């Protein structure tokens, strides 16, 4: 039976992506992702914990940086917009499903 985790530590994240801790601190400073234990602010970065959804965005941010050579400010903006888009798409699917319960023929055409 494998252990299931919902988080990843700062150290582990450094290993996963093979990137410097500084880069991760940078990513956090730009607000691309937020450690789940950050708010207390007393926490040193070595103790940061990220949720497993954050890893997905960290990887995407690194990929965008590498593939498109855009800087952190731009990446932060792009990631934020992508996250908002994802949330809207999810909302959309819910509304559509709900609507179809009342109009089974679904979308107009």
């Amino acid at each position, binding site marked *: *039976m*494998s*252990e*299931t*985790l*919902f*988080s*990843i530590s700062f150290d582990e994240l450094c*290993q*996963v*992506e*093979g*990137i*410097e801790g500084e*880069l991760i601190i940078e990513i956090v400073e730009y607000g691309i992702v937020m450690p789940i234990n950050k708010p207390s602010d007393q926490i040193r970065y070595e103790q940061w914990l990220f949720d*497993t*959804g954050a*890893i*997905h965005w960290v990887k*995407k941010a*690194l*990929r*965008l*940086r*590498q*593939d*498109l*050579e855009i800087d952190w400010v731009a990446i932060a903006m792009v990631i934020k917009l*992508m996250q908002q888009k994802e949330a809207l798409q*999810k909302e959309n699917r*819910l509304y559509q*499903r*709900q609507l179809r*319960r*009342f109009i089974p023929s679904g979308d107009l055409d």
Partner: protein
Amino acid sequence: MEFKDYYKILCVEPDANAKTIKTAYRKLAHKYHPDMNPDEGAEAKFKEVAEAYHVLKNEQLRAEFDELRQYGSQSRHDFQPPPGWKAPPNTGQQGGSQFHGDFSDFFNSIFGGRGQSHHAQGFDQAQRSARGQDIEIELPIFLEETLKESQKTVEFVMPADDYAQTAPSKKHLKVKIPQGVMDGERIRLKGQGKPGHQGGTAGDLYLHIRVVPHPLFDVQGHNIIITIPLSPWEAALGTKISVPTLDGKIHLTIPPDSQSGDKLRVKGKGLKTKTLIGDMFAVVKVTMPEKTSEKGKQLWQELANSEDFDPRLEWST
């Protein structure tokens, strides 16, 4: 094998300088990057562009390519490297971005495994660490399964080894799915990804939770919604009905003179996590029989005569 003219792919002249090449690459890359363009074919196009840039941004690779290009441009559609061309054996693909390092046969035939580690700074995983790659798979889960901790057997394909000779293989893994997982969450299974190389640790396996759309229940946050079809007489007279929830049936009292769209709240019958329990909302939907009996038609007519009701009152105001 087709000859790839990397200059044409980037839409630049063969004498373009480094800056022009970079600009051309970025212009094309942001259009076709899989994170930006979900269209079919976009990813293939991006890989082509990335490969062209990978070669042309590197002085040495570019020089070698230029040499080959003069030779290759004569036999465009059935390209073979010239006799004596020293293509090192293909050492396979290596980590970093999920796109770089995934080169065409053409690339491999002329450069082999060389030049595959020219990633941007900070990404050069393959050289600094031999930790195995992470793997992410989608895990469909039924809504009912989220109510309590459950066990699942996860099946996935472990990709071929980056370095050695193992083929892709099917893996089975027993996994404990915690109570209250939500659609879109990711579960991490430490060390269950690709094995490491030369003593490196294994990567992780991520399970991306996809809650399967339920035939009866919709999810909104921690609440669930069920539509309750009622016959018109049930709505008019009220009734007691047995209503499914995620864990067994409950009895629900429908008050007389219920209306389509009325919403009843059933406390505590929503989704459950360790810290909170959502509610179930039952939404009334008045539903007509598919066919009406002769007797029924008569009764409908009598109702029409007896009841004083204008369903379209809002239209006249």
